């Protein structure tokens, strides 16, 4: 028996699945966020050098991770959409972009809140800050391109190509710390060596990143559902859903 890999690539089949998944991940996101924030703001010890201001990392670092990760996922769906010509992939890519831009903005915003007490300035032209800003511009470019094309098929494909071209930027962001010699400290967490922070801090941060993951999945699936309904409004199942919901 062969597996039909494309079973869930049909909007009609995926629509109810996405609804159930979005609900589940939304609940998980709220729970993980509550636990993570409690650990981060009440349990984790005060940092010896940075005082209380370091606690912004419980939001800042997961948001920065998600901002880059979501761009790669967006480019992945974009590539799948171009390669297999599946409608749903393009919808997923368009659904991911606003959430990615949101996390990029949060990472920049919280980073600047952290930078003021620690570095003494809201903004520095450091490699990582700059490349995060460029990532935000890339998200905006993707969304602006899709918004200005009326034909959804062309919008999907054009956005897909732009995302694939832009994904070259994501490794540059990651390696920029090593390439340019700048103010931002090196990564505190890596797979190859022991993290240089207290265990509770690390746990809080990891739980927060799971919370952001779950939130992203829920928000993206909800947005994808809206896009599916809008694009497939002439299909029978979408009409039935809309009448049932109204």
């Amino acid at each position, binding site marked *: 028996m062969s597996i039909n890999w494309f079973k869930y690539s049909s909007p009609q089949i995926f629509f109810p699945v996405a609804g159930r998944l979005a609900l589940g991940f939304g609940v998980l996101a709220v729970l993980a966020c509550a636990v993570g924030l409690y650990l981060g703001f009440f349990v984790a010890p005060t940092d010896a050098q940075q005082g209380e201001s370091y606690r912004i990392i419980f939001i800042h670092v997961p948001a920065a991770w998600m901002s880059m990760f979501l761009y790669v996922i967006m480019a992945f769906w974009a590539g799948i959409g*171009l390669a297999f010509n599946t409608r749903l992939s393009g919808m997923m890519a368009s659904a991911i972009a606003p959430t990615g831009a949101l996390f990029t903005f949060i990472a920049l915003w919280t980073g600047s809140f952290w930078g003021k007490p620690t570095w003494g300035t809201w903004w520095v032209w450091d490699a990582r800050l*700059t490349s995060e800003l*460029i990532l935000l*511009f*890339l998200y*905006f*470019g993707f969304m*602006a*391109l899709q918004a*200005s*094309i009326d034909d959804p098929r*062309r919008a999907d*494909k*054009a956005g897909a*190509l*732009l995302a*694939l*071209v*832009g994904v070259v*930027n994501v490794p*540059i962001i990651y390696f920029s710390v090593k390439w340019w010699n700048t103010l931002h400290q090196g990564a505190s967490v890596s797979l190859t060596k022991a993290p240089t922070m207290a265990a509770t801090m690390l746990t809080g941060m990891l739980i927060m990143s799971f919370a952001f993951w779950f939130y992203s999945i829920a928000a993206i699936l909800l947005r994808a559902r809206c896009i599916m309904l809008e694009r497939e409004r002439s299909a029978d199942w979408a009409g039935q859903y809309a009448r049932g919901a109204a």
Partner: protein
Amino acid sequence: MIAALRCVIVRDLRLAARRSSDVLTVVLFFVIVVSLFPLGIGPEPKLLRTVAPGVLWVAALLASMLALGRVFAADHADGTLEQMMLGATPLGLVVAAKVFAHWLISGLPLVLISPVLALQFDLSQELLGVLALSLALGTPVLSLIGAIGAALTLGLRGAGTLLSLLVLPLYVPVLVIGAGAAEAAASGLGGHAQLLLLGAMLIFAGAFAPWAAAVALRISVE
């Protein structure tokens, strides 16, 4: 195939020669923007010497971006582009030829005039060479990346501003390294590393960007 490429290049150059004011506009834009900076930040020679590479690079980047709209627009409007897509020559190669012709028209003049403008900023002679060389290596990369954006925005409303939104973030590495070459040379480190990186970018973009632009053209025209 080589004959077809030569034909595309010669045709584009001839078309540009018949509308030479378009070429001049880009060069004049470059000159004016560069001349505005001393007026804005003051005529202090030491300050001007520091900012010169960055100013020239940003101005060159904006000027080459302004010219991007013309790479495919005219051919798209009169249907030539569709004939090129149907032709036997691979579209990626045709795009590469068009981008090369476009660089000869809009990039090369900027490279040639940049030493004169750099003199206004009191740059020393060896730096003039490094700056011109970095522009010579960098502006083709700008044209190549820009061609992808131009192809994606072909025939869209508000294509000009949209194009800048798409293309400028992608220009950043070229700008950082290009302007860095002259700065490194000024600080005594020598700009070799940056020039080599620019060369690597040129090879990379030259190999891949025409094909990406070709895909973008097919998306836009289908």
